[in-house]
């Protein structure tokens, strides 16, 4: 197993009075593909969003490459880190959203090279070269000059993956990347993700695609009620789930 990239300890998150995460402990190692499954409302997206501090944990901590993300515990209290530190941490974590969130006023290529130029201060020519290479990698070399509105959902999501990869992240976070897609477009996105996994990218994937979880996941987590109820290899989780709630969930989604 590779070195730990993300370590989560006692993570809790409440929205008002609703406790969405009720104590999560999880370590993600370099090169590992962790797939998170579970019913909606189980807290899996919130868990993912806590990793890059899009949601602020209420308790516990998230370590990214050994550093606390977004806030630090000082004398038992959570103190926010300087914005610059957080920005630098986020720059090394790629995130792919359910609704793509491409920048509609920029072409596919501009979407990909924006952060490398603005955040990494990469020279434009170099960024464009990188951007085109990444777009080719996701099979969209010919769409570089196209605006997002003129791309299909699957194409948009692949641009979004290229955009995240352009920051050369140490981990990629996928938040239900295929849930907003027409069924016939799901495959092309999953294929890109599978290629990425094969190339050794560290990935955390929240998804309802059980096929992907089984084929690509190194480890599958089943979440319910804000807790990781069960985790194991795909063979174990899908072949012989131990927890009754895992069994119940899988029997619903696999038929």
């Amino acid at each position, binding site marked *: 197993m590779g070195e730990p990239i993300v370590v989560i300890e006692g993570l809790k998150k409440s929205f008002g009075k609703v406790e969405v995460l009720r104590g999560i402990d999880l370590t993600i190692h370099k090169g590992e593909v962790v797939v998170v499954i579970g019913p909606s409302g189980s807290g899996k997206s919130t868990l993912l969003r806590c990793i890059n501090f899009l949601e602020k944990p209420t308790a516990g901590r998230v370590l990214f490459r050994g550093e606390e993300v977004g806030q630090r515990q000082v004398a038992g209290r959570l103190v926010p880190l300087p914005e610059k530190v957080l920005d630098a941490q986020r720059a090394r*974590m790629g995130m792919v959203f359910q609704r793509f*969130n491409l*920048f509609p006023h920029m072409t596919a290529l501009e979407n990909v090279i924006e952060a490398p130029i603005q955040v990494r201060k990469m020279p434009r020519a170099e960024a464009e070269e990188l951007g085109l290479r990444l777009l080719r990698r996701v099979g969209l070399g010919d769409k570089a000059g196209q605006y997002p509105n003129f791309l299909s959902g699957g194409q948009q999501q692949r641009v979004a993956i290229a955009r*995240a990869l352009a920051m050369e992240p140490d981990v990629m976070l996928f938040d239900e990347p295929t849930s907003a897609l027409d069924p016939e477009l799901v495959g092309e996105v999953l294929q890109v993700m599978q290629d990425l996994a094969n190339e050794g990218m560290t990935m955390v994937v929240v998804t309802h695609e059980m096929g992907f979880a089984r084929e690509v996941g190194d480890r599958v987590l089943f979440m319910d009620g804000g807790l990781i109820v069960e985790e194991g290899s795909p063979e174990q989780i899908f072949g012989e789930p131990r927890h009754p709630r895992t069994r119940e969930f899988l029997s619903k989604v696999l038929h």
Partner: protein
Amino acid sequence: MARFIEHTITILPVLLEGLGVTLRLTLISALIGTVLGLLAALARISRNPLLTVPASAYVTVFRGTPLLLQLLFIYNALPQLGLLLPAFPSAVVAFSLNAGAYIAEIFRAAIQSIDRGQMEAARSLGMSYGLAMRRVILPQTYRRLLPPMVNELAALTKDTSLASSISILELMKYSTQFISRTALVWQTFVWTAVLYLVVTVALTTLASWLEKKMEARG
């Protein structure tokens, strides 16, 4: 008819001179008001109470009191408090502050209409809040901003007529002065109205044209 044309020939050159001042007052105030409005909008949507509270107070006060009162306060009351401004700068300050309050709401609505996912995507790439605002959020608001901004400009054009009350020689003042000299009351007022209309109709036409054009582009 011949007399009407004759009157028109004497009235129009005078009024056009006033229109020049009106336009200058409008444009300068609009420019400053836009900068103020953007700053106030950004302050209002920030999470820092040191920014939101003064910005909200500013918008509330200047939208909630008559523009004429604001103008007279700046010109007549501020000198008693130790700040003496000549008439034209007083008017620019009053109109800028007032327009800024309305423009702040235009900007705020436009910024808040942008999907939250845009800011999240930008931040997840390591962009700072300011960078994300400048490169991702604000450019997306331009299209939504233009029509209400042009309308605001039309409103401001008419509002500058209040400057006549602090004896600034703009279109309205030229008009009333001309009337007291010549007693050509209705002719002068009609032509004054026409000149305001030319400006405001041009602007509102521009606004609705922009609106249509943007809808067409989706």
